[in-house]
């Protein structure tokens, strides 16, 4: 089990709806909570993370700010298409500190994962750290 969402592990952000140069989406995958990615207004916002290969995902830890409605989807295709929803949740607001949320799954395989922020408690939301625990899956020929 290791964090497959680290950029060191080969995960990449292939799609993001907001891009501020000072707060790029790579900040989500560097494992540090001080660097963050911030949205530039309007909802829904989404970003897609592609793993190095097919992964078996068991737990997702997300530290973010002002996020309210969140939907997590996965795709097992080669390209990030045909996403299926695996979890949807409304987060609780926390004004002075980050929201720390955990999502548990059993035996969900994914090559790409899409996170859709449907609504927020403020005009702008920020995601500080994304932690996905999982194992690599050996792909059949």
């Amino acid at each position, binding site marked *: 089990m290791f964090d497959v969402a680290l950029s060191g592990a080969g995960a*990449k*952000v*292939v*799609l*993001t709806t907001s891009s501020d140069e000072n707060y790029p989406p*790579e900040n989500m995958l560097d494992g540090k909570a001080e660097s963050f990615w911030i949205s530039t207004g309007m909802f829904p916002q989404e970003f*897609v993370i592609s793993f190095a290969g097919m992964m078996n995902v068991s737990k997702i830890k997300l530290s973010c700010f002002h996020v309210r409605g969140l939907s997590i989807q996965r795709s097992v295709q080669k*390209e*990030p*298409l045909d996403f299926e929803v695996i979890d949807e949740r409304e987060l609780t607001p926390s004004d002075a500190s980050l929201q720390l949320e955990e999502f548990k799954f059993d035996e969900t395989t994914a090559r790409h994962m899409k996170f859709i922020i449907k609504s927020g408690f403020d005009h702008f939301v920020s995601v500080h750290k994304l932690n996905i625990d999982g194992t690599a899956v050996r792909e059949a020929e």
Partner: protein
Amino acid sequence: MNRPPSGGGRRATTGARPSSSLRQGAPPGTAMRMPQGTGAPGTARPGTRGGVPGGVGVLDAKLSVTDRPTTQQGLGGMRTGKKGPQRVVMDKSYFIGMLRTKLNELQAENNSLQRGIEQANEENNSYLSYEKRAESLANEVKEQQGQLGDYNTLVDKLNTDTAMEEVLEDHNQLKAQNDVEAKNIDKIFTQRQEIEQNIHQVEQEIQQCRRMADTLVDDMNPQMRQKYMSLKQTNESLARELEARQQELDSLNTKKENLEDDLSTSQVKQEAVRLYEQLHELEEKKAQLIAEDQSRGTPTEERERLLKQVKEDNQEIASMDRQIQEYRDQITTLQDEIRQLDLDLEEHQGEKNMKYKELKKREETMTEFLEGYEDTKLQELEHKGNLEENIVAILSHMSRNLGRTKHMPNPQELARMQDDLSFKQTEMHKSEATASSLAGESARLQMDLQKVEQLESKITTELETLKAKISTMNQELEDYSDLNKLRGESDKRKQKLQEEKVTLTTRRDTFKKAVQELSAHYEATKTQLNENETYAQLGNLERKWQHHEQNNFVMKEFIAAKSMESDYRPLVAAVKTQINEYNKLVQESLARGVQR
């Protein structure tokens, strides 16, 4: 038509019929049967036949089968054929036989009529009982209807699922209303009773008064009573006359109103009225003139009359003049008396008063003078001293001037002095001009000084920035001189940018794919929507609505623009503010005027 009573009698009841026929008909041979169509005016004629002989001369041409033909002389005129061979000898037995037959017939007729009467009575009674039954049935029907209504409401309430509470509420409301109504009725009833009692009392009082009056009348002696009676009678007769006259007056009034109404409608009548009025006026005038003429009498009489009148008037005038004169004399005497009294008063007191006043005044002036004497004396002495000094000074001045006139300069010296004076004046002007120009110069120079100061500050700031630029440029020189470092940095940047490019291209591709997917989805939903009939209908309706709204809006704008043209309210507001200002100004000016 000629016998309305009989017709009416016939129409009233069936029972009256026999009486009339018995009354009127002398020996009708057979009883008159009820003609068909009793009561109709057209068939009233048959009744006339039973009427007084000779009353009606015309026989009705309409014969009904049951009517017997009659002549003026009554029934039995043409029935000779039916009775068979007649007896020629008309003696007592014949007539008796005739009478007997007639009597029998009458009896039979009577019986039948009696039977008819009894039948009618029975019918009446049954009619009454039927009526009563009908009434009771009607009541029952009403009750049943009421019950039906109740059931209907109940069914309605059940159907509409009204809650029990509502029904109870309605019931309570109705009960309350009913109670209120009942109370009202009771109140009204008690009021009515009270009023009736009052009426009773008043009536009793009236009766008492009448009785008292009667007793008084009885107590009076016969003479008085007679007088009283006569007066009473005259009173009554007069009252009756009054009533009659009043009625006449009313009828005349109504007639007059009717005539006036008629009058107002027809012009001819109006003309007639006008002419009548004229005529009336002229007749009056004529009567007047005639009366005058009559009462004129002969000229001498007139003259005498006039003279007499004149004398009377003169006498009156004279008397009045005398009275006026008397009053005037009285007035003058009284006024003289008043004046005398005033004078006396004044004389008596006036002399003494005046003397007293004079003495007082003199005393006052003397005391004043005595008080101010010292001061005034000093002042006068000073003044005198000053004047003396002045005189001395003037005298010395005069003496000096006299001495100086000897040293008066000649005209040349005078001219010189004048030249000097003019020269000095020009000098003075010039110096004034130089002074003003110098002031202007100094102002200009001060401004220049300020500008120069600003310039100096600007230059210092520029100098600083330039120094800073120099330092940065120096630094940059150093940086740029280090080519290696530059190259390394640019390489690093290039690498970073390449990495960024890669990530951004991948992101762009994913975006493109996502956008393609989404737009395909969007197109699909759009086509689906367009195929939907309801959507097409909605679209049409929306377009129609837009069209209508556009028309609406255009008209509203037009109306608003036009109504604004005729809108007087802003003008009213402006006028009001101006009037207020004007009022304030007027008030202020008046206040200032008052103060001054």
